[in-house]
């Protein structure tokens, strides 16, 4: 019934091949579409568009020296954000960074590492200096006035929010991702909280190699 009297087996075969090719093209288009969509989604959900990150800021280190955008240029940098009233993520990241710097050996000196507080009201220069004394001395603590810190957080698209606790205390929700910046202070990659040490080290080595 379906096969008319005028259709030879060769024509039928050609038609099947043609259908199969079309099907393959549809699958390919769908796959490429899905892939680009998920890549785009991943970029969007992280809020990390390298081109839109960075920009002028001015904060101070624990010795009171000004640190600006210019201090991120000419060498790769590691940039992360936190606060000292933090029992878990921040000390863990600082500890892991200390371990990474040790594992990198002399190459680590080609990096600059900055830990920026999202809570400058409590994290004064003295507080940051005391807290960071437990970690690698190459980790530079950055603080400043509230507007100064807000300017840096905005430039680097860092989310932070004050959340009240009882009796006037508060905690801070904040971005826990470690940013890797190239020598032009552009975002070159990230290390997620709790990323495996060997992946983190591979990323840092690649960053240093430029």
């Amino acid at each position: 019934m379906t096969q008319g009297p005028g259709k030879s087996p060769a024509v039928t075969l050609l038609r099947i091949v043609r259908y199969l090719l079309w099907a393959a093209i549809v699958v390919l288009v769908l796959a490429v579409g899905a892939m680009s969509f998920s890549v785009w989604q991943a970029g969007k959900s992280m809020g990390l568009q390298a081109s839109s990150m960075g920009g002028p800021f001015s904060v101070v280190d624990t010795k009171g020296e000004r640190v600006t955008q210019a201090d991120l240029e000419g060498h790769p940098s590691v940039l992360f954000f936190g606060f000292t009233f933090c029992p878990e993520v921040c000390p863990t990241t600082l500890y892991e960074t200390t371990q990474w710097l040790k594992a990198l050996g002399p190459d680590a000196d080609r990096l600059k590492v900055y830990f920026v507080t999202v809570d400058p009201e409590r994290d004064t220069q003295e507080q940051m200096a005391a807290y960071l004394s437990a970690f690698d001395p190459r980790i530079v603590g950055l603080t400043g006035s509230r507007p100064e810190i807000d300017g840096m957080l905005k430039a680097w698209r860092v989310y932070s929010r004050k959340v009240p606790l009882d009796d006037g205390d508060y905690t801070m929700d904040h971005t826990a991702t470690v940013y890797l910046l190239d020598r032009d202070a552009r975002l070159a990659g990230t290390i997620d909280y709790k990323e495996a040490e060997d992946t983190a080290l591979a990323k840092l080595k690649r960053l240093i190699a430029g």
Partner: protein
Amino acid sequence: MNRRFSRLSGALFALFLAAAPAAAHEVKVGAIEITDLWARATPPAAPAAGGFLTITNHGSEPDRLISAASDAAEKVEIHEMKTENGTMIMRPVAGGVDIPAGGTVALAPGGYHIMFIRPKAPLVEGGKVAVTLTFEKAGAVDTFLHILPVGSPGPKPDADAGHAGGHDHQHMNMGQ
């Protein structure tokens, strides 16, 4: 000479503490058993410290950890932290932590912790922090947490954070 000897033995003792596997103890109150009690040493001037432990309920009734208290800090709360889309979020736990009948709940990095707010003295590796845990049904128990290094993943580095299913094998035949 004597002083040098005592300094040397002190150093050896410190080395022993550092090298020894995390000191462990267990605590029981009613149908509740508490294991893996530890806290992280704090950096200088740290205004907060985290304490961790694993709770198993051998009873047939659910229970709840309703509070933790300690003289070692100005305030003690039970908090839960998580990371969502790269953002760290920490909140006090309202109403306590449910411990289902026959279940095990871990207060572990990446999940629940006992939050010591403004410790009266830094938590020093090798030391202990006293803590009183109060359960809704089992009542209160005084115990302590072993202080492990700043970056310690805990006494069981391979244990999953949050749901310590791996602990079950220890308790499978107990209370039955």
